[in-house]
C-alpha cells in the first residue's frame, strides 16, 4: 500500500511537471502599455496598436451601483445618462452627434463596481475625444428638463430589459435574495420609485464626489504615439481639480445561515426558469479563478458537463448556463437552467445539485482542465481584437485591482488553476445549504409544479 502510494505520488508529480511544461508554452500575445498619474490624480494608461488607423478611449470611474444609498437605487446609471446631456462646451446630445458624425461609436455603461464611458474613432480625431471627455469631467451641466427626459429614457430601459420580459423580475431577485449587504443586494437599474425620487441636487452631489480625476482611469488604445497622446491628455485634463477621495463602501457580506428560496409567478413567461446562486470570493482571487474554470467545465461549449448530461443525455433542460461572477467584493456563482416543458423544475434542480456533488466528490478530469485552458486562452486572445475592448479591460483592471497588467497575466492565472483546486473550491463554496434558488413559473402553473423540497 505504502509503496504503491508513493509510486502513484511520484507518477502524479511527473504528470504535473509534464503538464507544467506544456502549460508554460501557452501564451497570450503581450500588450505593451504606459501607466502614469497626472498631478491631479488621473491615471492614464496608453497602449499603442498600429494594426488599424483607429483608436479607442475609455474612462472608467470608480463608482457603480454599490455606491448608491437606500432610496436612490438606479442613480449611478441615471447619472451616467446625464453625462450625455451636456457640459460647459458641449450641448445636450451633441456628444453623440459629434462622435457618430465623425465615423465613431460610443456608449457608457454602469455596473455594480464601475461606470465607464468610451468612444472609438478614426485616429485623426483624438482631440475631439479628449475634448468631449474632459469637458464633461470638468463641467457637467444639468437641468430639470434634461433630468426628467433621461429619467424617462432609463425607465423605458428598465421596462425593455426587465418589466416587459419574461423572467425579468427573477434576474433582479436572485441578487436581492442572495445578498444582505445593500451594496450588491439592490439592482443597478434601480426601482421606478427611486428613479422618480432623484433630483438635480442629487446629480450635482454625485458628480462632485465621484467624478473627479483622482477617481478615474483614462485608457487609450490604438494607432497613436504614446508620448504625443500623453501630452494631449495633460493639455485637456491636467487642470481639472482633484477632490477628496470618495467614502469607501463596506462590501462585507454577513455570514449566511440557511438556504433561501422563492417562487415567482410570472405572467409574461410561458416556460419555467430555474435560477441558483452560491456565494463565492471576489474576482482576481485564487478561489474565484478556480470557480471560473469550473464554470467553463460545467457549461462552456456543447461538450460541457451540464449540456451533455442535462440537455442531451437526461433531456431535463433545454438550456443550462453557469456564470461565476468576478466583482471587487463578494461574488456569486450563478446557474440558470430552463427545464424542458414536461420536466418539473425541482427535478432539474436536483440533477444540477447532483452534478455539483459529483464535482465535490470526484473532481474534474485533466482533459476537462486542458479543454478549459484551451477555451480560456482562445477567449483571451480573441478579446484583444478591438482597441475598444482592450481599453475597457485595462480600465477595469486598474480600477478593480490596481493591476492593468492583468490583461497580460490573467490567462496565466487561469492556467495555473489545478484540478485539485477546482475540487476544493467546489467543496468550499458551492454549498447547497447556503444556496439561493428562484423558480420562475408561468402564472397559473398548478401548485404541485412549484413545490420545493
Amino acid at each position: 500500500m505504502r509503496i504503491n502510494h508513493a509510486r502513484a505520488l511520484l507518477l502524479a508529480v511527473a504528470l504535473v511537471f509534464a503538464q507544467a511544461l506544456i502549460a508554460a508554452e501557452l501564451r497570450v500575445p503581450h500588450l505593451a502599455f504606459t501607466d502614469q498619474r497626472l498631478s491631479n490624480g488621473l491615471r492614464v494608461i496608453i497602449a499603442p496598436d498600429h494594426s488599424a488607423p483607429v483608436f479607442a478611449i475609455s474612462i472608467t470611474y470608480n463608482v457603480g451601483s454599490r455606491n448608491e444609498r437606500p432610496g436612490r437605487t438606479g442613480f449611478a446609471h441615471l447619472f451616467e445618462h446625464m453625462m450625455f446631456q451636456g457640459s460647459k462646451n458641449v450641448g445636450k446630445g451633441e456628444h453623440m452627434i459629434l462622435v457618430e458624425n465623425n465615423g465613431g461609436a460610443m456608449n457608457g455603461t454602469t455596473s455594480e463596481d464601475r461606470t465607464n464611458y468610451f468612444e472609438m474613432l478614426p485616429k485623426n480625431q483624438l482631440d475631439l475625444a479628449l475634448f468631449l471627455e474632459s469637458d464633461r469631467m470638468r463641467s457637467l451641466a444639468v437641468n430639470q428638463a434634461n433630468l426628467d427626459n433621461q429619467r424617462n429614457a432609463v425607465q423605458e430601459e428598465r421596462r425593455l430589459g426587465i418589466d416587459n420580459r419574461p423572467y425579468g423580475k427573477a434576474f433582479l431577485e436572485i441578487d436581492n435574495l442572495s445578498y444582505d449587504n445593500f451594496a450588491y443586494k439592490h439592482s443597478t437599474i434601480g426601482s421606478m420609485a427611486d428613479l422618480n425620487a432623484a433630483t438635480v441636487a442629487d446629480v450635482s452631489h454625485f458628480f462632485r464626489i465621484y467624478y473627479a480625476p483622482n477617481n478615474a482611469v483614462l485608457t487609450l488604445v490604438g494607432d497613436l504615439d504614446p508620448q504625443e497622446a500623453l501630452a494631449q491628455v495633460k493639455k485637456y485634463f491636467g487642470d481639472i481639480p482633484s477632490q477628496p477621495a470618495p467614502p469607501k463602501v463596506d462590501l462585507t457580506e454577513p455570514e449566511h445561515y440557511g438556504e433561501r428560496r422563492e417562487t415567482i409567478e410570472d405572467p409574461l413567461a410561458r416556460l419555467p426558469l430555474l435560477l441558483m446562486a452560491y456565494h463565492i470570493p471576489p474576482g482576481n482571487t485564487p478561489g474565484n479563478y478556480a470557480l471560473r474554470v469550473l464554470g467553463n467545465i460545467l457549461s462552456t461549449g456543447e461538450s460541457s458537463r451540464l449540456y451533455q448530461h442535462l440537455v442531451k443525455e437526461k433531456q431535463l433542460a433545454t438550456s443550462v448556463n453557469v456564470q461565476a461572477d468576478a466583482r471587487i467584493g463578494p461574488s456569486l456563482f450563478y446557474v440558470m437552467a430552463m427545464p424542458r416543458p414536461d420536466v418539473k423544475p425541482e427535478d432539474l434542480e436536483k440533477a444540477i445539485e447532483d452534478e455539483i456533488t459529483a464535482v465535490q466528490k470526484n473532481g474534474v478530469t485533466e482533459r476537462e482542465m486542458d479543454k478549459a485552458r484551451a477555451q480560456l486562452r482562445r477567449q483571451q486572445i480573441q478579446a484583444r481584437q478591438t482597441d475598444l475592448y482592450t481599453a475597457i479591460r485595462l480600465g477595469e483592471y486598474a480600477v478593480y485591482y490596481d493591476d492593468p497588467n492583468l490583461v497580460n497575466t490573467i490567462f496565466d492565472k487561469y492556467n495555473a488553476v489545478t484540478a485539485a483546486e477546482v475540487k476544493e473550491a467546489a467543496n468550499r463554496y458551492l454549498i447547497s445549504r447556503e444556496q439561493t434558488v428562484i423558480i420562475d413559473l408561468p402564472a397559473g402553473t398548478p401548485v404541485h409544479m412549484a413545490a420545493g423540497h
Partner: protein
Amino acid sequence: MKRTVLFLMTAVFALGTGSAILLGQEGNKSIPLSKVVRLNRAPVNKEILRVKLPRPREIKLDNGLDVLVLERHKLPTVAFMLWIKAGALNDPRDLPGLAKFTADMLREGTTHRTSAQLAADVDDIGATLRASANFGRSVSVVTASGLVENTDRILELMSDTVLNPAFPAAELVKYKKRQLANLQQMRSQPDFLAYERFYRVLYREFPASAVSATPESLNRVTRDDLERFHHEYYAPNNAILGVVGDVQYDAIVPLIKKYFGNWESHPVPESNLGSVPAPATAKVVLVDRPDSVQTNIMAGDYALRRNDPDFIALTVTNHILGGGPAARLFLDLREEKGYTYGAYSYFQSDVYPGPWIASTQVRTSVTDGSMQALMAEFRMIRDEAVPEKELDEARRAIIAGFALSLEQPTTLLNAWLTVDYYKLPQDYWDQYPQKVAQVTPGVVREAARKYIDLDHLQVVCVGNGKQIKKALEKYGPVEVYDTNGKRLE
C-alpha cells in the same frame, strides 16, 4: 463583446447598442422639452480619414468552390466562413425551417463522429463551429474559428460537418423537443411577436414571411428531408468559402484543397423564388399581449435587393432618419420626448427586396404620441429637403466609419463575401465612399419617397390591446391577433 452575460442587468448602457411638438399624453402637465443643443465648440478634424479595404486573393477550386483568402496578422487567430447559396428562402412551403434544421443538425454527428465526439473535438482546441440558416435569407452559413495553430484541425472538423453529416435519427428526436420548447419560449418575447407579425403582413405568400419554424414543421420533418436538402444544395459549385486571419495564401490554399477539394460538385436546383407580392395598402396590426407595459412598434415597407443601384441612396437616407443615436428618430423620440430607450430604423437586402423597418419600444401611455412622432418623421424626410449640413454629416459618418471596420476581420471578410455572392463590381468598396459622397438632397428625397411609402406602410404594435387599440385606429383599420398568432378581429 463581454463574456457571456447571463444576467442582462449587470451592465446597463446609455444607448441600446429630431424636431419638436408634443404631449397631450401623460396627464396635462406640460413638461418642458429637453432640446438637443449644438454649441459647435469641439475640435473636429475636418479631414476624413480615407481607408481602402484590404482585398482578398481569390481562387476557384476544380470542383467549383470559390475561395477568398484575406490575410490579417494582428492576432494568431483564423476564421472560416462558408456561404451555401441556399437558405430559409428555399424551405418548402409546408416545411418552414428545413434549411435551419439542416444547418443545426450538422453539429449533431457525422459519419465519423457522434454528436458528443464532435462537440468534444471542437471544445478541446477552444474552437467555435456553427452552422445557421437565418429566416428571410437566401444563404446558409457555416463558420469555424479558433487559434491559427489549430488551423488544420479546424478545417478538418468543418469539412467533416459540411461534407459528411449523418443526421442521426435519435439526435433529431432530441433536437425537435428542444426546438419545440424554444418556440414556446420565443412567444413570450415581445420583439419576436412583432417580427413574426410584421414579416407576415409585409411578405404574405412570399417565403420571407416566415421568421420561425412551426410546431407542425418540427413534428413533420424527417431525416430524409434533411438529407435531401443537404444533398440538393450543399455543393462546392453552390458555395463560397472565405478565410480571414493569420494565414498565408500559399499555405492555406493547399490545406483548403485537402479538406474541401474532394467535395463532389453536382447540379443544384434552380432557385425559383418568384417575386414579392404587390405592396398592400397601409394598415395597422395589433398583437394583444395583455400584460405588456410597453408597446413594441415596428413600421415599414419593402426596401430593395442588395444589387439595386439605389442601395447607397437608401443607406444615406436611412442613416439620417434612424441609423443611430445621432439620427432623427433617436433624437426626437428619446432625447427630446423621452418616450423610449431607443428608436432606430434599418433595412435588409438580399436577392429579393428585404424590409425597411423603423422600430421602437415605448411605455403604453405614449403609444399614440410615439406613432404621431414616427409618422411626422416619415413625412418630414419625404416632404422636406434634407438640410445640406445634416446630409454632409451623414455622408461623413458613413465614409469615416469605414476605418472602424478594419479592426474586425470577420466584418471585412463578410464585405467581400457580399461582393462575390451578390455579384457586385469588383471595385465596389473602392467606389463606395465616392458614391456616398455624391448623394444629394434630391437623391435622399427621391429614396425617401420611394421606400418610405406611407400609402403602403405596414405597422405592427405588440402591447396591451385594451389600452392602445383606440389610439391605433387613427392610423388605419386595425387587425388584432393574440400572442399565439391567432386572428381575433
